[in-house]
């Protein structure tokens, strides 16, 4: 049981997919201008990861080693098609906003990476927990980045106005920098800085 818990808990801080494993950066940067799409993306990735890890782990003894990558890709893309169709049916606006990035969950390296590194060698239940844990660990970073970008970029949180831009009254003005790609890069780099200082693991 402790193995399962460890698989679930590690990805949050100690082995965070974005800050430590450097996986799945593309979508973390692209969908984080607002909290809502970031949250949707996090849920979508968590669902895909949990299920793909479970499936790969169930099939791990049947999958021939030589063609394992194409099999994993097929499993993942089938799951992503499901997620994409569900999003199109129930949350069309958000699915438009996420545009190609729903499809890009297929090549999101976390999903493949965890299937390769964990699910292929471990029983289904820990694999499932590992998938969900990694999905959530990734989602936490996504939501943090989106929080700062939405709050300082347009002064809103979940579409509600929090900070009003009033250059005359108290000199506060929304920063356009947060909305453009640069803002995403800078915020992630700051998160990595805080994270590395917290875990005391430094790269040379």
């Amino acid at each position, binding site marked *: 049981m402790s193995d399962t818990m460890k698989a679930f808990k590690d990805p949050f801080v100690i082995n965070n997919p974005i800050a430590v494993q450097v996986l799945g950066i593309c979508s973390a940067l692209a969908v984080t201008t607002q909290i809502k799409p970031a949250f949707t993306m996090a849920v979508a990735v968590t669902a895909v990861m949990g299920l793909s890890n479970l499936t790969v782990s169930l099939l791990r003894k049947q999958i021939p080693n030589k063609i394992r990558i194409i099999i994993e890709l097929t499993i993942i893309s089938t799951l992503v098609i499901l997620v994409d169709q569900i999003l199109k049916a129930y949350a069309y606006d958000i699915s438009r906003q996420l545009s190609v990035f729903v499809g890009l969950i297929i*090549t999101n390296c976390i999903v493949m990476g965890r299937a390769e590194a964990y699910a292929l060698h471990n029983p289904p239940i820990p694999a499932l927990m590992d998938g969900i844990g990694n999905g959530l660990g990734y989602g936490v970073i996504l939501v943090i980045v989106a929080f700062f970008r939405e709050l300082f970029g347009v002064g809103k949180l979940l579409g509600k106005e929090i900070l009003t831009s009033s250059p005359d009254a108290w000199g506060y003005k929304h920063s356009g920098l947060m909305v453009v790609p640069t803002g995403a890069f800078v915020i992630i780099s700051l998160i990595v800085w805080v994270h590395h*200082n917290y875990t005391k693991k430094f790269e040379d």
Partner: protein
Amino acid sequence: MLELALKAIFIENMIFALFLGMCSYLAVSKKVDTSVGMGCAVWFVTTVTCPASWLVSNYFLKPGEQNLIGQLFNKPDLDLTFLTFVSYIALIAAMVQFLEMFIEKISAKLYGSLGVFLPLIAVNCAILGGSLMMNDKGFTFPEAAMFGFSGGFGWLMAIVVFAAIREKMQYSNVPKGMRGLGIAFLTCGLMAMAFMGFMGIKFPEKKAEASENPVAIVEAVEVETVDVKAVEVKATEDSVEVKAAEIKVDAPVQGDK
């Protein structure tokens, strides 16, 4: 066409504006040599896969007359677009495998420099992202080919420049926690900011053919320049309706006006 190419290389650069292929971008950019290899491989593959996936999407997936599967079963409205992801990824994986074998046959030298990167590329989001992006924008075939070519080139340029900066950065004194990943992101951010400068490039707008509007009816004379501050443009099958604040037509008078 040139406009599309410039847009794909500079304004909508795959890395700095669309964040495609970030993982391999960060992982393989520690040395200029390897980054050139990786960049060329990506360039090569997008050039091939973008038009190829256009063909797949138009002749196998989208509903309509041209759909070959629809023709086979005599169902012209067969819509297989929900299979887009799985068919693209299969196409890309197959293409990459094929390219690898092809390069190995024709040039051992090229294989030596690109070969190691090719398997990595099947799961690089720049490739799939490029194809999906192309799908989203509704390009024609030549446009899709151009988009693949120039998008890949933009990626190559971005990774080589970044690798050169990272090589230099080894000698600088970076705060402990920022070393490695943190400073890489920050550099990317600064480069993205530099690339934002390209957003200012304005391409000449396609001139609207204003042949009829409620204020004045302009006969089809040889018009030299039309200067329109358009408020609203509505186009139907045979006419263009322009609600404009100001229209200046500069034309040589031919006979009665």
